[in-house]
């Protein structure tokens, strides 16, 4: 137990760098990037040490990895049972998450040294990155569900700050506002969910809550299932609301609208926040409370179907987008959909807990290959100075390292063995095969579509027509592939992408903490891989040559293509709801009330005060003799009162 106190340094180091850069940044100048990176390097090494000690140390009781509370400080005590604690909980998923978060954050810090070079607000950028890293680590290590919520909001704030980093651009400002409002809306659900769970569970401590609400005989469980609201048990409500919070952060359909717009932020930020770490917070949240979720099949099937819908819709939309970062954003949403439905189909223990493990495994591998994809996209954008696919093409000769890394990442996400994505995706599909064939079918189709759009991206960027000389920037000498600090993270991540799938993940992270034997079944893997390869070939045929074949097919699809390229009009629907329904029927009357009644009261009060004092201001004439007269009158009045009337 005592051996883990140092883990508190893992979130604290980024906090210290944040304060350092935030307060003294102006004196640090260029060196701030180095400071941030060095601090994070220390945190990364510590988290590796933690993982090593945790997974290979002595706390393997009966073959189960015990949750360890490394540090706990009771912060706000509401009642003997109910308190908000700040602490650090180590269990397989949190250890896995700190490794992922610190590692990816380190890569992004490193990459940003080159990518953000010469940026005016370089120091601010690193300060925000440190803030984000701190919040994310605090989130994954939380012992208390309210601590989760606080860091959840901090993560949202730092995401908002980083999306709006280029605040001179109107679109970036709009995107940051959109991200903040949409996720905040979802977080409202999360907060209510927390309050319900805390009220019925009598505790905010995650371990206590899980213990009480999974025991069907406990009074808390009986109370929360017996109470009902609109005919649905309160437990279902609470979990649904918590899931809404998670879905908002993880950009699940229909709360996904903010994620594509969030690509307005700097590309390394997208790699860190909107691909590898923050967006999987929803998945992590469900995993954290998974024992409770598994008590309620209704919510689990909601999780499943939201995940499936997100995976499919996002994949289809991704095929039609032309902004490479948006393609990647939809791809992220689709992959998170996979993780979600995998959890939704899972059970808590044994073989049936495969889905949980698969979800975490996919989270793990996805972090590597998706951040790699984003960083490659960042390198490409750095080179081309454009996000648009049509400005690119034929870059494979010009950017060999980026090309190789991007290809590896694409193969990984397409699920081609032996790259990382293959293993995790196989586990997910296996879960679906065991539990629900319909979901399996959609999963298979989505996986194929994933391979298609990723290779559409790949061929459009690196093959297609030769690099257009009419692009915005003429090819000059300064256009090299990028500095060493930009290439190094790509190579490291590419190696991880190759290797991550070989990690015996099921030994470490499972639903019940017991190692799980996974059976590799070559026959089962044939259909998905085959489909992916076919999809890749189709993509190659359509996009490799850069001629009009793809456009013809798109024209042939007509309305379907148009709907997909317009993202199925979800944004328009939201706009319609807000502008045509909420504003005129709720916003305007509220504004009228505010302006006329609330302000009217205040103004009236001020008016009365002003007119009263105006009426009696002649009393203060400034003439000494008036004052002596008043004084005399006062004394005389008091004398009369006390002598004659007060007997």
């Amino acid at each position, binding site marked *: 137990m005592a051996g883990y106190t140092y883990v508190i340094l893992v979130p604290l180091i980024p906090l210290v760098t944040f304060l350092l850069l935030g307060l003294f940044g102006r004196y640090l100048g260029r060196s701030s990037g180095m400071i941030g990176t060095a601090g994070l390097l220390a945190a990364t090494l510590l988290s590796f040490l933690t993982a090593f000690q945790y997974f290979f140390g002595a706390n393997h009781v009966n073959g189960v990895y015990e949750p360890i509370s490394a540090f706990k400080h009771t912060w706000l005590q509401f009642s003997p049972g109910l308190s908000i604690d700040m602490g650090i909980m180590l269990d397989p998923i949190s250890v896995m998450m700190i490794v992922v978060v610190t590692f990816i954050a380190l890569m992004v810090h490193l990459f940003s040294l080159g990518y953000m070079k010469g940026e005016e607000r370089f120091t601010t950028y690193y300060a925000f990155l440190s803030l984000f890293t701190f919040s994310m680590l605090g989130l994954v290590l939380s012992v208390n569900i309210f601590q989760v919520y606080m860091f959840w909001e901090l993560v949202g704030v730092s995401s908002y700050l980083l999306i709006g980093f280029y605040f001179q651009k109107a679109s970036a400002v709009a995107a940051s506002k959109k991200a903040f409002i949409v996720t905040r809306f979802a977080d409202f659900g999360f907060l209510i969910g927390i309050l319900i769970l805390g009220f019925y569970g009598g505790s905010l401590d995650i371990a206590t809550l899980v213990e009480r609400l999974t025991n069907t005989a406990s009074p808390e469980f009986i109370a929360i299932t017996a109470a009902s609201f609109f005919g649905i048990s309160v437990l279902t409500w609470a979990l649904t609301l918590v899931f809404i919070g998670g879905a908002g952060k993880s950009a699940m359909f229909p709360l996904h609208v903010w994620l594509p717009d969030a690509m307005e932020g700097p590309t390394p930020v997208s790699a860190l926040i909107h691909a590898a770490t923050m967006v999987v917070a929803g998945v992590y949240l469900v995993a954290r409370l998974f024992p409770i979720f598994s008590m309620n099949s209704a919510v689990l099937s909601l999780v499943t179907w939201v995940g499936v819908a997100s995976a499919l819709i996002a994949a289809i939309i991704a095929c039609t987008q032309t902004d490479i970062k948006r393609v990647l954003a939809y791809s992220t949403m689709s992959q998170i959909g996979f993780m979600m439905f995998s959890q939704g189909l899972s059970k808590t223990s044994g073989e049936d807990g495969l889905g949980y493990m698969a979800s975490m495994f996919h989270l793990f591998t996805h972090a590597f290959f998706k951040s790699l994809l984003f960083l490659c996209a960042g390198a490409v954008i750095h080179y081309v100075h454009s996000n648009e696919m049509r400005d690119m093409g034929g870059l494979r000769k010009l950017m060999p390292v980026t090309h190789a890394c991007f290809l590896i990442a694409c193969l990984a996400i397409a699920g081609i063995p032996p790259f990382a994505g293959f293993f995790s995706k196989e586990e997910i599909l296996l879960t679906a095969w065991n539990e629900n064939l319909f979901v399996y079918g959609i999963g298979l189709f989505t996986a194929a579509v994933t391979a298609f759009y990723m290779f559409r991206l790949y061929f459009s960027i690196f093959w297609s027509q030769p690099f257009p000389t009419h692009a915005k920037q003429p090819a000059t000498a300064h256009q090299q592939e990028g500095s060493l600090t930009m290439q190094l993270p790509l190579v490291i991540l590419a190696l991880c992408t190759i290797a991550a799938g070989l990690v015996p993940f099921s030994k470490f992270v499972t639903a019940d903490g017991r190692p799980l034997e996974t059976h590799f079944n070559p026959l089962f893997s044939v259909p998905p891989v085959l489909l992916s390869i076919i999809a890749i070939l189709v993509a190659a045929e359509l996009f490799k040559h850069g001629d009009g074949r793809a456009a013809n097919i798109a024209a042939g699809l007509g309305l379907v293509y148009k709907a997909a390229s317009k993202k199925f009009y979800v944004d328009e629907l939201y706009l319609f709801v807000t502008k045509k329904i909420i504003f005129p029927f709720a916003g305007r009357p509220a504004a009228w009330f505010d302006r006329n009644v609330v302000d009217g009261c205040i103004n009236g009060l001020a008016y009365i005060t002003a007119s009263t004092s105006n009426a009696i201001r*002649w009393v*203060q004439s*400034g*003439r*000494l*003799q008036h004052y*002596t007269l008043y004084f*005399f009158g006062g004394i005389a009045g008091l004398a009369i009162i006390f002598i004659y009337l007060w007997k």
Partner: protein
Amino acid sequence: MYDVPLSHVLFVSTALFFIGMYGLFTRRNMITMLMALELLLNSVNINFIAFNKYLYPGKLDGVFFTIFIITIAAAEAAVAIAIIINLYRSHKSIDIESAAELKF
């Protein structure tokens, strides 16, 4: 000595007090107001001495109070005149009406 009743002495002091009061109300020149103020203080002194002599002849407290009041009156007059001179320097007048800035 005691053939004049105390109330007659008090009549003089009370009348003097209200004469001073009247001067304080009506005078516009600050020096004359200061004079009226001196009358007020003197009427109080008469009271103290008279009460001491008529009611508590065995003690000297009234006398001491008178002495202290005279001392303080001297200090007060000096400060008041310093203020008046300063005011005259800035306003070129010691009319109380011209120093009426301290208002709403």
